[in-house]
């Protein structure tokens, strides 16, 4: 029974991903990609990974979907410059016109053959892998007492592999800087006019946003607190916060824009700074981000609170900068 469900889910995953990449209509492709994200969330639930399922549903399907739908209005239409190896072929009727030449067919066929070979090689490598010499779940379970939290994924994220998470938050912050640099700072006259139809599909009733945004705050607080002993934590809580901001923006209650003021800028960096401060404070022990066991729980909660705020602001900022830049 479980196997049948897994096979059905995998078939649906492959179908939605394949259709998102092959369907001629870009709007349909984006909607199929959102469906793909929701199916991925189901797959994570099947793989005993509720933390990832939460993050995938909120970020992979929700926020990415909002970003893509917003970008659709700006990127739709034929590609103007035809350059590079592969010219648009007939299957891309909505993306570029013109009959394909013979070398195009040959090169497309070659690319498909190579991709299939890559997939088969990967699958073969997965099947031939030897059993791992050490069991990571056992190692994690053995060290849980010293971690300061009761949920293994949170312990790995913020204690055992805190270094990775620190760098990851820095990457997120850098990406936002990149988006602000690219999307902002343009003269208002040069901003493209958003097609009315593209924005109309993203309208949200004000009443709905007014009811849902405070609820989202509550849910984010709960997820942050729950992360210490069950699925949840800073990433999921931050994603819910960002979703509330996107909702308010779509309802017209929160302006977008690519030039945040200094209070907002401080909030964007706050989580990273708290994380860095804690890392520097415990450095005296000789190892980066190794907390004293008695303080571990409190320090992790402190870092997670800062991260929730900054991740929420950053993820919201990614959307607000991109959608706001077009309405100046």
């Amino acid at each position, binding site marked *: 029974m479980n196997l049948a469900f897994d096979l059905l889910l995998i078939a649906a995953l492959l179908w939605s991903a394949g259709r998102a990449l092959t369907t001629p209509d870009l709007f349909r492709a984006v909607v199929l990609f959102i469906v793909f994200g929701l199916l991925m969330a189901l797959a994570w639930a099947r793989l005993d990974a509720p933390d990832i399922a939460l993050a995938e549903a909120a970020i992979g399907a929700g926020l990415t979907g909002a970003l893509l739908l917003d970008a659709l209005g700006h990127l739709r239409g034929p590609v103007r410059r035809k350059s590079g190896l592969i010219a648009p072929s007939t299957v891309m009727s909505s993306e570029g016109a013109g009959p394909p030449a013979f070398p195009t067919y040959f090169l497309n066929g070659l690319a498909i053959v190579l991709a299939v070979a890559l*997939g088969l090689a990967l699958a073969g490598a997965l099947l031939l892998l030897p059993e791992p010499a050490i069991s990571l779940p056992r190692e994690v379970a053995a060290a849980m007492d010293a971690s300061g939290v009761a949920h293994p994924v949170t312990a790995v994220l913020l204690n055992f592999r805190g270094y990775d998470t620190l760098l990851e938050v820095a990457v997120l912050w850098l*990406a936002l800087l990149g988006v602000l640099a690219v999307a902002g700072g343009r003269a208002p006259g040069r901003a493209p006019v958003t097609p009315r139809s593209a924005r109309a599909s993203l309208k949200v009733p004000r009443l709905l946003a007014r009811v849902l945004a405070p609820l989202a705050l509550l849910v984010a607080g709960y997820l942050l607190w729950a992360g210490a002993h069950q699925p949840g934590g800073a990433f999921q809580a931050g994603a819910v916060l960002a979703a509330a901001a996107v909702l308010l923006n779509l309802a017209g209650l929160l302006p977008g824009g690519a030039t945040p003021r200094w209070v907002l800028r401080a909030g964007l960096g706050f989580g990273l700074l708290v994380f860095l401060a804690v890392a520097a404070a415990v450095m005296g022990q000789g190892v980066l981000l190794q907390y004293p066991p008695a303080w571990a729980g409190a320090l992790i909660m402190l870092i997670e609170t800062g991260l929730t705020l900054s991740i929420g602001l950053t993820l919201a900022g990614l959307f607000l900068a991109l959608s706001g830049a077009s309405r100046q």
Partner: protein
Amino acid sequence: MSAGLLYALAGAALFAFGVAGLILRSHPLRKILAFNVMGSGAFLVLVGLGQRDGTADPVPQAMVLTGIVVSIAATALALALARRQREHGNDKEERDA
């Protein structure tokens, strides 16, 4: 075959789908979709392979959790660049015309 290994194999297939889409489709939005499909495939391989013996493994799960956040950041940056490129291309054509 365990569920973990099954999903890891599905991840390998998704990765290959993404690579093919990245090469074959010319539209920047489609390339961004393909890149995200590749990412999802890699995540499935990581988590699925980590728990092919049937027990949940928190280490790859935590890595993938951060990976999802990085991938939306990369997607947003790619969308911003794609929009800038399109505007830039239009400007150039207007000058040429």
